[in-house]
């Protein structure tokens, strides 16, 4: 395999890993807990930004050759910025969830989340001191690059390995959550909030938990992305990006971790990468616009024909079974929270 192809394939694999992690986080919020978080990309961006500033080191003043301003620069060793990114994603989710999830109907919630996303972009762009305005951050050092003396291609594959390891960790986390009694209770809240509340479940607390966990995972995915591409700008984290993840979750099969992984492979990676090989046509920006239209159409087509996705959520049955499927996740169990 030529070096160029190795570069391309390893890059696509890293993007795939980031998208898979992000989709698992969104699936935890949307597929499992039924939270419509249209600001998902903001948590990913916050994680990415955290990782970037914790790797960049303190901001240099302009006269010493510094060209970007940001808050809280530090140069932490490799895995720490990514962990910190998860922490920041989770904290931000706790703050946003504090006002958006508490008492809102899911459609209000979606609307507020959309507004959060739009506002976050406008603040990040206008408040130059915070995240260097519309220019964003650049030249984020790549993790371990100076320590390991690898060839560029070798480094690429090393990064693929890091991403894969992160995927395994996150999968372990989402698997534990979704297959435990906690996951069952979250699905109960999603399917019938009143009934879950009537059984004594703390509905708001459970939704908050899913929201914060999703925020942590989003932060981690953003951190990996930024460590790889070593640049960050507010313009690449706009709300339509969230919609791509939603489409991936729906196409793959919301509520099913494996299905969501397939969705991440099909939508952000295969669907958006494929256009790279098309000949350029029309004025600049036309292909992007058509791509967005196609993503929108894809979401509509799937919601109409296959609303449960390519690999639907497993129907769960229990030995002491309730008669109707609708009530399937509401059976109280001794191990349930």
């Amino acid at each position, binding site marked *: 395999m030529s070096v160029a192809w190795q570069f391309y394939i390893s890059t696509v694999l890293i993007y795939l890993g980031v998208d898979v992690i992000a989709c698992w986080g969104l699936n935890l919020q949307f597929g499992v807990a039924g939270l419509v978080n249209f600001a998902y990309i903001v948590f990913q961006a916050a994680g990415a930004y955290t990782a970037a500033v914790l790797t960049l080191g303190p901001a240099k003043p302009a006269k010493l050759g510094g060209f970007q301003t940001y808050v809280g620069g530090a140069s932490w060793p490799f895995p720490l910025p990514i962990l910190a990114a998860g922490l920041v994603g989770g904290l931000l989710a706790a703050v946003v969830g504090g006002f958006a999830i508490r008492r809102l109907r*899911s459609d209000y919630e*979606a609307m507020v989340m959309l507004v959060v996303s739009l506002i976050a972009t406008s603040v990040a762009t206008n408040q130059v001191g915070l995240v260097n305005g519309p220019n964003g951050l650049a030249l984020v050092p790549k993790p371990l690059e100076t320590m390991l003396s690898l060839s560029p291609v070798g480094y690429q594959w090393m990064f693929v390995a890091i991403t894969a390891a992160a995927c395994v960790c996150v999968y372990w986390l989402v698997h534990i959550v979704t297959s435990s009694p906690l996951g069952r209770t979250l699905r109960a809240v999603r399917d019938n909030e009143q009934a879950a509340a009537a059984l004594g479940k703390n509905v708001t607390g459970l939704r908050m938990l899913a929201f914060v966990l999703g925020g942590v995972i989003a932060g981690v995915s953003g951190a990996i992305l930024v460590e790889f591409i070593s640049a960050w700008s507010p313009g690449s984290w706009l709300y339509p990006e969230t919609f791509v993840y939603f489409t991936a979750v729906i196409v793959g099969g919301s509520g099913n971790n494996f299905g969501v992984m397939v969705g991440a492979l099909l939508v952000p990676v295969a669907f958006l990468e494929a256009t790279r090989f098309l000949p350029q046509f029309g004025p600049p920006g036309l292909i992007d616009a058509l791509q967005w239209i196609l993503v929108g159409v894809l979401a509509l087509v799937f919601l109409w024909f296959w609303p449960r996705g390519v690999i639907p959520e497993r129907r769960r049955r229990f030995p002491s079974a309730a008669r109707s499927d609708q009530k399937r996740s509401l059976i109280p169990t001794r191990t349930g929270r």
Partner: protein
Amino acid sequence: MNTLVPAIGFGIVTASILAVAGVGFTLQFGVTNILNLAYGDIMTAAAFIAYLVTSAGISVWLALVAGAAFGAVFSVLLNRAIYTPFVRHGTRLFGMIIVTIAVSLIVQNGLLAIFGANFFSLQMARPSSVHVGGMVFTSVQLAIIAIAIAVMLLVHLLLRYTKLGKAMRATATDPELARNCGIATDRVIDLAWAISGTLCGLAGVILVMNVTAFTDTTGSQFLIPIVAVAVLGGIGQPYGAMLGAVVIGIASELAAAVISPDYKDVVAFVILVIVLLARPQGILSEIATRKEVAA
């Protein structure tokens, strides 16, 4: 003082645009229970229709009519062709939100594909300026205020004194019961989309009459204050939206004058958050509270 009085003037203009847009948004949501996140993009589309009309050398007032008509027709068709079929198909609340946002992306990028990523402005005669107290308005801005007042009066008359208004309020409160009472709810819903679409189209055109340039994202950016207005007034409450528009319009222009123009939307957002924390049902919404208790 020198900056505050003109800011209130701008605030009144912004409030007028917001009132038209907010009432349309909330009215449709109240009657049909579909949260149409493509609303801002339909506004942009109407603005582009107006742009085409004015570019053909036709007066901006006819462009306004064309924009409103486009909004009405597009909204009714959108509901008939996409939203209602999805609801009948069994798409639930989450699904419908995804559907409306998919439509929003399709419309916005459709406009981008057709018109390209440029700045556009409506062709109109240079407006003269008028001094009222310490405030300066252009003649166009005065017209916008007049249009908003006229629209609010018409909406008020429609809701209070016509059979259609009564039927709309009945459908908003309980569609099943309304149907059982012999109200043709399908027709009421069509009309609600038509009225909301008219307001949406009007709002889109007066929005771009008031700015120097617009792009394919102008309308979706404006969705922030619209949502704030609708939530502040209590969703589905046209009178609440009118009040919300005045509050948010003036507050955001004052903030623009005192702090920085970049923070207009942030103020709307802060008000939104405060309302959500303190009174999620909105400031003027006894009906919504009662509904909550009954459900």
